[in-house]
């Protein structure tokens, strides 16, 4: 997964965990049951429009709020390839890594792409994002976080480290 393309959905600043998945749907049995309500307070139609491999681009403080792990799980279950934001809230960041959801921080892409929802971008892991003929450099994640994402999440990484296979 060194390089991939995807169609972009644009969300704003401070997309909180109650927007990603409202409290009232947390009682549903599985994450698959919940995922159709993703982002529903803001854009009720969005979850149905997201296709496999799409990318979410947002402003600052994506994922702020509660520690509910269903938030990154739902985004992963919608088969979103990655979320690119100006910044992520820290508990959401940890929960995403632990569930194998790739998050990329970039300061300037959002401002350039926010009026161009549906555009296609290319992501080169740990290196850059390319959009509209321009490159946006990205930082490499620390090795131990890459290990967790590449294993598919923290539990899988823990098993791998301990030599356990399913």
């Amino acid at each position, binding site marked *: 997964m060194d390089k991939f393309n995807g169609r972009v959905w644009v969300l704003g600043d*401070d997309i*909180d965990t*109650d*927007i990603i998945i*409202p*409290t*009232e749907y*947390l*009682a549903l*049995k599985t994450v698959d049951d919940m995922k159709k309500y993703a982002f*529903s*307070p*803001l854009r009720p139609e969005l979850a149905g429009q997201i296709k496999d491999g799409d990318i979410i681009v947002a402003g*600052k*403080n994506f994922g*702020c*709020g*509660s*520690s*509910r*792990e269903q938030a*990154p799980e739902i985004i992963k279950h919608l088969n979103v390839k990655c979320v690119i934001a100006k*910044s*992520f*809230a*820290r*508990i959401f*960041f*940890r*929960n995403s890594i*632990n*569930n194998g959801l790739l998050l990329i921080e970039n300061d300037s892409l959002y401002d350039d792409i926010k009026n161009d929802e549906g555009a296609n971008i290319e992501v080169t892991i740990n290196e850059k994002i390319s959009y509209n003929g321009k490159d946006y450099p990205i930082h490499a994640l*620390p090795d*131990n976080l890459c290990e967790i994402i590449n294993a598919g*999440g*923290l*539990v899988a990484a*823990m*098993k791998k480290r301990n030599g*356990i296979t399913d």
Partner: protein
Amino acid sequence: MAMTIGEKIIARAAGVDEVKPGQIHTVNVDYLMSNDGTTHLTIDMYNNKLKNPKIADKDKLVFIMDHNVPAENPKTAAAHKKMRDFAKANDIKLYEGKGVCHQIMVEEFVKAGQFIMGADSHTCSYGALGAFGTGIGCTDFLYAMVTGTSWVMVPETIRFNLKGKLREGVYPRDLILTIIGDVGANGCNYKIMEFAGEGAHNLSISDRFVLCNLAVEAGAKTGIVEPDEKVVEYCKNAGRDAGDLFVSDEDAVFEKVYEYDLDKIEPVVARPDFVDDVIPLSQVGDVKIDQAFVGSCNNGRIEDLRVSAQLLKGKKVHPDVRFLIAPASNNVFLQALDEGLIDIFLESGVMVMNSNCSVCWGSCQGVIGEGEVLISTATRNFKGRAGHKNSKIYLGSAATVTASAIAGKIVNAEVIYG
């Protein structure tokens, strides 16, 4: 090397002499707290995703039911049963119907210098007693439960030097909302918010709880008030030693330093739908309310209930307003009974709820409907947080909430005192 309070706690938990921001360390966790919001998910992962799992140290685990208590539907009841059965089978401490998780942790367990993780974002409250508390998700919880450890990237520390005293009629809720309004909802993202200076030492443990509790609403990994004799006294009264009272070294490195003069803080509210959309109460305009709430881990303590009772004594809740009060724990509830506060509430028309997250969690009690307006001491006011997605939540102190419940619209408590 010089270190901040948070760095010293991480170094202690990691068993090393010093740590620096940006380093990743494996730490031993002193307590692991999980509530009924997600414990059933952790148990499912424990049972289904791991081979022959074992709990590293059951004495470090605390399970607390507070989010949907008592259960409001069969799904919640099933999740509670799973939690209860697992706790019993593994000899884990379980609290049910005793209060909000962070209030119970501070009343019963937390000591200065400890590193505590909780599967709830407001675990940062434990800095009231000089501990490092931080919120995690259930996968992190599972990992810590079976290994006794977790990984942590050492955050930078942002220092808030407080001086002076809050004036009468101004509360720590006003102070922390003012700070969040100034720095923004991600102004301290992944940082430690350290509160120090004589102004911090003037604050009670309950006041400090309010500050640290909302640190996460500025994005912080934790909030810590420099511990002092008040922490020692609090822990002594609770029947335990106070732990290690770390303070920052004089030459410790802070990413930023803010200065706040407590005498200059005014009553404020946070407007819907963002905790950092903070304005002076005097500028709120004419906002009629449908419901009011005093409670939650932020403002459900005896100090808050006393403020509410003082305003309500001899008065009635406005006929167009439902006013719910939920004491943060049964200890608080008993104290309020003892002081006659509950009588005042009931006589004035307040609905007194059991000790739980109540309106702040937005799915068990006091849910608001489409187009309704709530003023609340809850922890956050996100869109739809207390019910319908097209409802509005204002946040303020217990005084502002109570005065507004009497007036039927958002007002300063001075209006009620006249």
